[in-house]
């Protein structure tokens, strides 16, 4: 069938608009990356570029000359790994029993769980709970509260529900306990889902700055995101408050600021290809019976 001219015009418009939007998602990163290597003069004079005229490693050397950022990086890494593992433990162990329709008391449990989707205690009561547990300035405060997302729990529960029950039944008949069935039959079948949600939780922990803002006062415990905020936004006078590391408020080194942004972005972009492989599927499992 021949296309009408309107149809062709629309296709052209469509292609261009999507292309422009998509390029706005990468151009800022490329610019920041270029700036982190570029000489100071170039950043101040040229409005936009993605290939620096000269390549300097000065700003990266500067970052590593103070322990602040490398330490924050390690803190974030620790919180991300231990957080994602803890969260998967809570999510998998709770989702499996909830996926069994014959479980006595299941509806009560599910009611308790889904209610938290529409209502929550809010920031201050949450803070008081953490405080009375004695978690202020403890890494527990940065790991435990986020270790079970209701939404993720329900999606994983739906996934378990879709698994063929016959396999589990035959394992039970052969004398396998419910725990054994879960560990030896169900978990090995769920590897794609486990990968998806481990990555989701990991990204959540890596990007989180609110927990550290609320529950820690000791800046040596701060994860990368909170330190980045301090360096870029507060040193920029964007938010009133004191800065804690003189090294980064010294001469307004634009290239250093850009290198700091790169430092905080690269880990996410590094796992993005793995994430992308999984998250579409992860969302679909949830969409089947949301």
């Amino acid at each position: 069938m021949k296309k009408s001219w309107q149809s062709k015009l629309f296709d052209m418009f469509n292609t261009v608009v999507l292309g422009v939007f998509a390029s706005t998602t990468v151009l800022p990163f490329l610019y920041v990356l270029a700036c982190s290597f570029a000489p100071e003069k170039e950043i101040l004079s040229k409005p936009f570029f993605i290939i620096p005229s000269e390549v300097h490693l000065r700003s990266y050397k500067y970052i590593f000359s103070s322990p602040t950022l490398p330490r924050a990086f390690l803190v974030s890494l620790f919180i991300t790994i231990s957080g994602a593992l803890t969260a998967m433990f809570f999510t998998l162990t709770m989702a499996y029993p909830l996926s069994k329709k014959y479980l006595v008391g299941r509806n009560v449990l599910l009611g308790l769980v889904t209610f938290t989707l529409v209502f929550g205690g809010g920031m201050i009561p949450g803070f008081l709970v953490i405080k009375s547990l004695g978690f202020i300035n403890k890494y527990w405060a940065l790991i435990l509260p986020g270790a079970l997302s209701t939404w993720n729990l329900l999606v994983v529960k739906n996934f378990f529900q879709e698994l063929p029950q016959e396999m589990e039944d035959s394992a039970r008949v052969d004398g396998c306990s419910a725990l054994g069935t879960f560990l030896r039959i169900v978990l090995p079948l769920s590897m794609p889902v486990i990968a998806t949600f481990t990555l989701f939780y990991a990204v959540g922990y890596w990007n989180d700055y609110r927990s550290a803002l609320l529950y820690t006062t000791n800046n040596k415990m701060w994860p990368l995101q909170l330190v980045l905020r301090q360096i870029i936004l507060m040193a920029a006078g964007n938010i009133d408050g004191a800065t804690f590391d003189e090294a980064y408020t010294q001469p307004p080194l634009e290239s250093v600021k850009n290198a700091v942004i790169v430092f905080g972005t690269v880990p996410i972009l590094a796992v993005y290809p793995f994430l992308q492989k999984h998250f579409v599927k992860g969302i679909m499992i949830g969409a089947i019976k949301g």
Partner: protein
Amino acid sequence: MAEMSAGIKIKNKRKKQGYKLRQIKKDLWLYILVIPGLLHFIVFKYLPMWGILIAFKDYNAYLGFFGSPWVGFKQFTDFFTSPEFGRLFVNTLTISFYNLIFGFPAPVIMALMLNEIRKQWYKRTIQTLVYIPHFISWVIIASLTYTLFNSQGVINKYIAAMGNEAVPFLTSADTFRPLIIGQTIWKETGFGTIIYLAALAGIDVQLYEAAVIDGANRFKQFWHITLPSIKGTIITLLILRMGHILDNGFDQLFLMSNSLNRSVSEVFDVYVYTMGITRGAFSFSTAVGLFKSLIGIVLIYSSNRLAKAAGESGIF
């Protein structure tokens, strides 16, 4: 006769209870598995809900949760009569409203546009790129915004090159809202398309084939087949969205607000933080938070009723 049937009923009940007990015993491991997650829910979700009670008290750290005196609705009346209330309410609703009318349709439109792309490699490339911002933290996004929009940033360099005066995007009350909505659209539009693209992929191809035979052009196919097929998905997501209409993202607004744009940037979420964590007015800020969540519940239920009244399935 009556006694007898009552006896049978009791016997049946006992039998049922016995069956239940046996069932529980058989599934003992399942109950043990539930314990860690259940404890998590109790400690981190339900204890804070119980803690909401301090909104009706005058909380004092020395007297503690139980020792602090009850004050009824004092915190609420204090809040409603405070000069901040009107400003917070307007700021919160305005940002929510703009996010709803600009941010909600954006992924629908983008999904429909992606759906019309015939070159698969182009579609896949676009998708790969537009999903990225969803995974980038607000701190990084605020930093990028700073780099691009500060007085010597990329945008202002172009404005200067055209001979115009620099625009103080980051510190002006006029540019704050567009900047916030722009950030949200940039971050979430691409990721939001996933669910609509799935709905679009589920449309029966035969419908289009039949439409072509009947002489429907591309626009007619879009209007009579594509759009009606994803209407349900759009409505479901709209209802879910209504419940969170007043949560305009603490993480984002806290980073973007500063003393120069406070007149438009202060919203309920940020105010709760400032009053509660920074100034220690725990009871007052809990009352503010509770007021916000209650509006959210009312909105989610009423939009659900509305959707049902309009003949849609709703979410509960």
